[in-house]
């Protein structure tokens, strides 16, 4: 038992170190190696954080959905812990995306915020999952909180395509994607050094994400252990 915990701790440490390294290399590459954007100049470098942040957030919400479904099916507390950890990180990365986007938007569009489709969509995601966290926090009974949250994790995720469609029909101003576009392959449209910087940055964010997820998951586990101990000792 002690050995496996130690091994787990070690692998977590390695993951953390790798994340740090990848984020550092990604930053170096995106700030110094990649050329400035042809139209936007240096400001565009925020993209190397902006895009990985939102992709990581999407991944996180997908994880909430899967873990919520698993929880409702198997009723195992570990799935609930995972869903909770992923939702919290999803909110964190979405908030980061919005902040980075604002900093990028001010010099390029002249405004911190505009009611464009993609911005609105991202803000709605933040609201939904912030609601998820508040819901969890306001139900005292652990099991009830877990199933209520799992339901919201599922219907929230299924609602996302509809929200996406509706706000897009409503309005669009955000620049169209330059990397993930249907008519051109990524390397035809973007400077290779930019693509490398973005890839490294994305890998860094993924590693960082999974590192944080493992920490947050462990925190949830520890909370439960403390609760169990308290019950056992009657304090």
């Amino acid at each position, binding site marked *: 038992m002690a050995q496996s915990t130690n091994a787990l701790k070690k692998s977590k440490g390695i993951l953390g170190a790798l994340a740090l390294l990848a984020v550092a290399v990604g930053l170096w590459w995106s700030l110094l190696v990649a050329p400035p954007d042809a139209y936007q100049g240096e400001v565009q470098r925020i993209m190397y954080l902006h895009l990985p942040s939102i992709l990581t957030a999407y991944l996180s919400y997908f994880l909430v959905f899967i873990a919520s479904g698993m929880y409702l099916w198997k009723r195992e507390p570990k799935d609930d812990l995972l869903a909770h950890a992923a939702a919290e990180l999803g909110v964190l990365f979405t908030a980061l995306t919005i902040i980075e986007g604002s900093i990028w938007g001010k010099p390029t569009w002249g405004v911190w915020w505009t009611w464009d489709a993609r911005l609105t969509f991202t803000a709605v995601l933040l609201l939904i999952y912030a609601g998820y966290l508040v*819901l969890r926090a*306001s139900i005292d009974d652990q099991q009830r909180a877990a*199933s*209520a949250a799992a339901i919201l994790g599922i*219907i929230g995720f299924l*609602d996302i395509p509809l*929200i996406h*469609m509706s*706000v897009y029909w*409503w309005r669009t101003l955000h620049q169209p994607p330059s990397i993930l576009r249907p008519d051109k392959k990524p390397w035809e449209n973007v400077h290779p050094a930019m693509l490398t910087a973005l890839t490294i940055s994305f890998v860094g964010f993924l590693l960082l994400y999974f590192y944080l997820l493992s920490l947050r998951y462990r925190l949830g586990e520890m909370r439960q252990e403390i609760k169990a101990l308290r019950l056992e000792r009657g304090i």
Partner: protein
Amino acid sequence: MNLLRQAYLLLCKDLLLELRRRDSLLTMFFFGTLLLFVFHFAFDLPPDKIGELAPALLWLAFLFTGTLGLAQLFQAERDNHCLDALLLSPLDRGALFLAKTGFNFILMFLVELVVIPLFWILFNLPAWNLIPQLFLVTLLGTLGFCVLGTITAAITLRARGRELLLPLVLFPLMIPVILATIRCMETVLKTGGVADAMGWLRMLIGFDVIFITIGVLIFDSVIES
């Protein structure tokens, strides 16, 4: 059709309770009317401008009154542990979901039946002939609201401060319905029909169908004791 039969019986029970006590409907009705007055003071506008704002204002009123209704939706079940008794009976939980959705839908329908014409009277709007079409669109939106609203009311049932939590969780999820309904109503007011807003109308119907299905399937886990 055991499911529908059970849902029908439960719905009758709720309607009978409401008929005897009349607390939800009256409150919702007065609140909806009150909101019209508040809007009038807030936007002191000429009739043609108010006509443009009508869909948005009406929907705000319906959202708020609907939320009021949802907060009361499981009140009868909370009192005296009636929910436990309901769950002990050999009922399909999907039927409970359909009945609660239907009940809230009927309440909101009755409120809308009064509030929409009242809006036209209070703000001197001319287009009386468009009210049936507007009503149809509103009903589709209301259905969507009640479907997701019932699920959220059920999951916030045991939460602290659930009346506050309910709109917090529900409103972001309602954005497709809010957008689609208001755009459809605007198109009706502008062109006299929904032909130009078929995409929005389809989305509205799609939303209703998707979440009714999910609700029936998932309500078993939603409402567990």
